[in-house]
């Protein structure tokens, strides 16, 4: 349904900045990534912070433009929607939504919950005030919020409540695809489970697809049909959830999983997040510097994402046997 082909995003270094950072050159946040999400599918995108997960999610929704590559919606290019008339654009935008990472800054602090949730209906439908009211009540109920919160401002809500308002807003006008960017990161255990149940329920009931961005691996395993692992802007592995959690193939995926399973007490983790400076323009696998299995070929040529099993893709020169 939604796919990106060979997209790259380069953020240029701002040379006219008031405080020049001293770092010359630009940052490649996403590097030739191809990924698709099918109808009625939940794909989890995992990886350490700063690896480009959010950027990829935003590119998939056309929120930020890709520097290179194609973004396709049912085979149609993104540009067809953005450059066509307002009606077509709005109709497209209605179906592709995002739940932003930060539940604090993604709500307008001066709008009440009711006003925030009424906005999508006013923008996308021609409903009259009374029907909008009913629809908003329905939404508030669907995400499990108290009916009393509708007159609250975001500042009066807890993190979990705000996150639910965010989700309700994305669900308002029957979307087909939602990018959920770390929707669980700031939540308590019980609220987290509530939100996951909510997302799964909506998926089952309405067939909404998700790109579920997270570094919470147990939650990703619970919710997703397929897992995509990202490392420093590149996809290194995609596989069906069960297969991935039973038998991760890429060395980075293996370390990521081992870390997540490991107990905190002994504190001897092989840490994949040590910043190794990958020279832009240098060839070779980005993970080679930390890979326990790296050989000469890993430092000289970047591995491509190739199909290893019917639904699995792997970018590694020396995949384990």
């Amino acid at each position, binding site marked *: 349904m939604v796919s990106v082909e060979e997209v790259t995003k380069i953020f240029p270094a701002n040379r006219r900045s008031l405080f020049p950072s001293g770092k010359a050159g630009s940052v490649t946040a996403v590097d030739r990534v191809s990924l698709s999400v099918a109808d009625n599918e939940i794909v989890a995108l995992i990886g350490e912070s700063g690896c480009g997960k959010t950027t990829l999610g935003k590119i998939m929704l056309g929120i930020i433009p890709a520097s290179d590559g194609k973004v396709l919606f049912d085979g149609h290019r993104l540009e067809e929607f953005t450059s066509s008339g307002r009606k077509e654009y709005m109709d497209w935008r209605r179906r592709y939504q995002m739940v932003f990472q930060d539940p604090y800054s993604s709500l307008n602090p001066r709008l009440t919950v009711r006003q925030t949730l009424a906005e999508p209906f006013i923008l996308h439908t021609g409903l009259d005030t009374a029907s909008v009211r009913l629809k908003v009540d329905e939404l508030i109920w669907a995400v499990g919020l108290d009916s009393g919160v509708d007159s609250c401002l975001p500042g009066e809500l807890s993190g979990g409540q705000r996150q639910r308002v965010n989700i309700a807003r994305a669900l308002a006008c029957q979307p087909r695809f939602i990018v959920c960017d770390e929707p669980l990161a700031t939540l308590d*255990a019980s609220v987290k489970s*509530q939100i996951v149940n909510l997302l*799964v329920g909506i998926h089952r009931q309405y067939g909404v697809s998700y790109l579920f961005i997270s570094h919470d691996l147990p939650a990703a*395993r619970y919710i997703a049909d397929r897992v995509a692992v990202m490392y420093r802007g590149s996809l290194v592995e995609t596989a069906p959830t069960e297969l991935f959690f039973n038998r991760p193939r890429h060395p980075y995926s293996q370390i990521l999983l081992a*870390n997540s399973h490991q107990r*905190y007490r002994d504190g*001897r*983790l092989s*840490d*994949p997040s040590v910043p190794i400076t990958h020279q832009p323009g240098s060839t070779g696998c980005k993970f080679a510097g930390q890979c326990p299995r790296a050989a000469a070929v890993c430092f000289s040529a970047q591995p491509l994402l190739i199909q290893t099993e019917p639904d699995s893709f792997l970018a590694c020169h020396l995949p384990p046997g």
Partner: protein
Amino acid sequence: MNKPAILTVENLTVGTGDAGSENLLDGVSAEIFPGEIVGLVGESGCGKSLLAQAVTGLLDSPPLFVKGGRVILEGDDWLALEEKEKNRRRGRVVSMIWQDFHNAFNPLFTVGSQMIGIISHIHPERRRMASWQCCRLLERLNLDRPQEKLRQFPHQLSGGTRQRLAIATAMLTEPRLLIADEPTTALDAGSRSAVTAAMTDFVRGQDRAIVFISHDLTMASDFCHRIMVMYSGKIVETAPAGQLQRTPLHPYSKGLVSSTITFESDRGQPLSVIPSDRTGRSSGQPGCKFAARCPQAADVCRRRKPPIVKIAQERSVACWLHADRELEGHGKC
């Protein structure tokens, strides 16, 4: 435990001055012994940070103030001490890692100058080696090129880096009691375990203790020795970490444990959750604060405050369900 407790909190009650408003901390009692890491867990807003602030005497007062109870820190009645005396003990006796690490450093000075300033203020004899100590600890906390980082200003550093700098500062003052309020929120898995490992070493074989405040029960149980579960301004259960995960007693702790998503969660089943209180009945009622959300609540729970039942040496629970399991000779209601 044979050694005397570093910190004893007795019946601590904190609230606002308004008549009729509920107390935010409601009769909290706890003891922290040398050599242990105690996890304080509970949902956001349950009063975890407030307890830390009350214990260090850094309560936002007014509007909040201590209404009753005692805090005994290393034998001193902390609440009766003069502010000057408290300041003399802060850093040496008790240090705090603040949850809000963004504002932990002055934006106008380099982080290094601030860290070294604090350490040498508390331990003047260490002035010359403070910088070296900072670098060594920061390396242990998984921070790359610490020397470079120390020369930078707070705004030049990432959230994760700042958080680790704040942790290092508090640890290097070498207090007897370190209170760490959600110290790993901005860290990824690798750095997080580096921090927990450093904390484990901090108390090992020393006359020190750590109170580790977190909303993540899994993480807290993995490296703390003892867990205190807090709900709505009260400590509802205290237990050794492993026991709490295996056999939680209080219905709220049970809810916390069973709602945690794990690698074993059944993908076909909805996750279990603690029912939310949609009636708003919990406020103002005389009994147990959890009663409105509790699946096992009985009539007595709504009418009377539950007793604190001591089940075993290191185990207590504040719940009517366990009222008949009192360990002999430890009656305390």
